[in-house]
């Protein structure tokens, strides 16, 4: 692969969304002006390139639908001869079964993340507005 000194990584982006399709994610990645390689797959996309670029692009894709886009790093780059089924005579690549199994439970996780976000407004809690001096004066002077 390219660049011996560049820290190249591959990330798998799995999309389990009703509003974002894998092709939308791929388009978003194509739009970005960073030097990366992408590969569309049946469950999402694989992004390869320098660490900073990949992380930037992945963050953008995740922002499309944060609770329904899942990301993990992959050890091998796409098309690696030791993993790619094109050079291994077909069949699922090692690791595919695990991914497929986890992808099957992503709807549960997505829904739970939605609910967790809804039930935990702690970080979003806003402090009450300050009372204006005139209002405070009215309260002091009011006779209840």
């Amino acid at each position: 692969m390219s660049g011996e000194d560049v820290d190249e990584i591959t990330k798998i982006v799995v999309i389990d969304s009703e509003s974002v399709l894998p092709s939308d994610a791929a388009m978003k990645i194509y739009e970005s002006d960073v030097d990366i390689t992408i590969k569309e797959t049946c469950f999402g996309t694989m992004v390869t390139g320098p660490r900073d670029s990949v992380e930037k692009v992945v963050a953008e894709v995740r922002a499309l639908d944060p609770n329904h886009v899942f990301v993990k790093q992959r050890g091998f780059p796409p098309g690696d001869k030791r993993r790619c089924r094109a050079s291994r005579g077909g069949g699922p690549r090692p690791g595919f079964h695990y991914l497929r199994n986890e992808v099957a439970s992503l709807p549960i996780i997505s829904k739970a993340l939605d609910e967790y976000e809804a039930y935990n407004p702690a970080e979003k809690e806003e402090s009450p507005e300050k009372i204006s001096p005139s209002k405070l004066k009215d309260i002091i002077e009011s006779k209840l």
Partner: protein
Amino acid sequence: MAKIFIYPTNSLILSDLVERFGHKPLAMMEKIKEKITTVGVDSPPINITPEDPKLGLKYAAVEVPAGVRGRMALVGPQIDEAEAAIIVLDSSSAFGCMGCARTNELTKFLARQKDIPRLEVKYPRTEEEGKYFVYQIAEFLKSLPKEEDEE
């Protein structure tokens, strides 16, 4: 940002949740990447060099199969490095790359032996379990220090 050891070590869900809540997952994928991209280490198609079972001796005895020691050469240093651990039990998909039951037992054992914050949850199979699963992991991750080794 704490370094979180995850088990299963190649889990998409755990790796994603740890990153999502602002920490660094210590996952198998990162190790594999290091292994296959380090010049001179590469010995396709297996990528395990004669050195690895020796490294694994730190974690497993010599009479333990070389496969376990080879795997522990990757997993063991991650456990050493970990500042917290999330262990998911009853994962039906602990096969394939995760397929060595003895390594899995040893991994969990070593993670439990280490004096670090640890969360053990069951793999979710229903929506209710899913909510509990995410809630527990999120609260655990939020309870860990975020800026510890940054500055």
